[in-house]
């Protein structure tokens, strides 16, 4: 355990140091941190240990697939390649002089133009790794259940079984109710997808996948779509004809339906931002703590920095699980709201507060 920690810290420190060199001169913590939490066309494990990833472009010249290493010359400087140029982490069409081609958009602002970018970036590659891991782990477990039929779980199966049961019993059953079963595959997948990727993001050299807005956007969108498409009559009834609300707020001035409709979208939006912000913030804090060493240019600050970073790392391990749990729990609650069957009871103007429903049952 100690050895792993020391290794972890040295590698993390090392990669932080590595970020300094391309700038050539003054250390800029902001750039280093943004570089670490952002996406990239190469997987930069450490200086000298760089994995160039495939670039896939579709645009004026049709489909183009080549290695990202083509964008760098022997001195690790960025160069245009094949009519494309990489600028600030994006690929654009190149002019003759190697600068990004620009055009004026509809709002009259000049902006660079580029092809559709399907590249396997660092985040995509990291996602593939996590997916392989997910398949490996859960196919093994599924096999174990077949082999070990009706017996007590063992090995990796006994590690994940309580977690699966937790997702089923404490997240799905309690929040969705009797119809929980059809949501189980999504809830389990999203829980383990987020958790695995959160943990992979904490590994030195790992990508900040769950701290990327595109990833959380897709996950939140899934929850939104599932909620909307599994919404029953009573769910839509509660949105457009909220019980317990004076009629003039519904039909006179349609404030309540408006608020409820906005609510459909703000719920997954909060899911998206929460996961993205929590994971990104954790990465920024750890990297900032390491940056202190280089900002003060003193080895004396090292132990303090490392101590704080160790603490943060443990906190992040917890946050990795917590965020996966929260995302799954809230998704389950939204699904639960969509499939809940409301008894037709007189609500006496108190609305359908949970206690009223509980009392009616």
């Amino acid at each position, binding site marked *: 355990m100690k050895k792993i920690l020391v290794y972890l810290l040295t590698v993390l420190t090392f990669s932080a140091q590595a970020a300094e060199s391309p700038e050539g001169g003054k250390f800029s913590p902001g750039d280093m941190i943004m570089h670490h939490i952002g996406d990239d066309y190469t997987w930069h494990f450490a200086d000298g240990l760089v994995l160039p990833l495939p670039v896939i472009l579709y645009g004026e010249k049709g489909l183009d697939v080549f290695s990202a290493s083509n964008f760098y010359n022997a001195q690790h400087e960025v160069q245009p390649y094949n009519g494309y140029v990489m600028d600030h*982490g*994006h690929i654009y069409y190149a002019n003759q002089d190697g600068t990004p081609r620009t055009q004026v958009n509809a709002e009259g602002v000049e902006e660079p133009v580029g092809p559709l970018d399907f590249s396997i970036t660092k985040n995509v590659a990291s996602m*593939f790794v996590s*997916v392989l891991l997910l*398949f490996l782990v859960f196919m093994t477990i599924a096999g174990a*259940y*077949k082999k070990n039929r009706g017996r007590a779980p063992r090995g990796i199966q006994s590690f994940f079984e309580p977690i699966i049961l937790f997702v*089923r019993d404490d997240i799905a059953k309690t929040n969705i109710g009797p119809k929980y079963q059809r949501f189980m595959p999504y809830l389990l997948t999203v829980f383990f997808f987020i958790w695995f990727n959160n943990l992979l993001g904490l590994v030195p050299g790992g990508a900040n996948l769950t701290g990327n807005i595109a*990833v959380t956007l*897709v996950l939140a969108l899934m929850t939104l779509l599932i909620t909307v498409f599994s919404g029953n009559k009573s769910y839509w009834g509660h949105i457009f004809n909220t019980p317990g609300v004076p009629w003039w707020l519904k039909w006179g001035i349609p404030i309540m339906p408006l608020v409820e409709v906005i609510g459909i979208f703000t719920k997954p939006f909060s899911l998206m931002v929460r996961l993205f912000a929590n994971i990104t913030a954790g990465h920024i804090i750890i990297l900032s703590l390491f940056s202190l060493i280089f900002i003060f240019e003193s080895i004396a600050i090292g132990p303090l920095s490392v101590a704080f970073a160790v603490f943060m790392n443990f906190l992040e391990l917890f946050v990795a699980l917590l965020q996966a749990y929260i995302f799954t729990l809230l998704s389950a609650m939204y699904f639960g709201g969509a499939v809940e069957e409301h008894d037709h009871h007189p609500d006496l103007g108190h609305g359908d507060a949970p206690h009223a429903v509980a009392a009616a049952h």
Partner: protein
Amino acid sequence: MNPLVTPSFGLLFWQVVTFLVVLLLLSKFAWKPIMAALREREENIDAALSMAEKAKLEMQALKADNERLLNEARAERERILKEATEAANHLVESARAKATEEGQRMIEQARVSIVNEKKAALTEVKNLAATLSIDIAEKLIRRELQDEQAQRALVQSYLQETHLS
């Protein structure tokens, strides 16, 4: 816009594709068998538990039955013992009564026979005395007929000889 909050098209595309594939494959090949196995195991455990409960109840019923049988047997034994003691007592009692009665009867018989014997003996003595008296009288009369003196001496001697009991 800040690059952090600008979703990039490529990642969006790959995330949608990958996540859907993962969802589909894991649902089919992992979650379905896992959930089914978990449910089956839970049902088995439930069934086993209710069976154990039933067996316990049966066991209790059996035990109560045994207890009842045992109690019955014990009572039966008690009863039989009591009866036997009573019978024995009765037997002894009746035997004793019979013996006493028999004894009484025999004593009575003996007494009667003693009385009879006594009567017979007395009668015999009386008869003997009478005979003797007659003999003496005969002899006396006979002697008297011969000599007066001799007769008297004879009577005297007879009288001395004869010990009237």
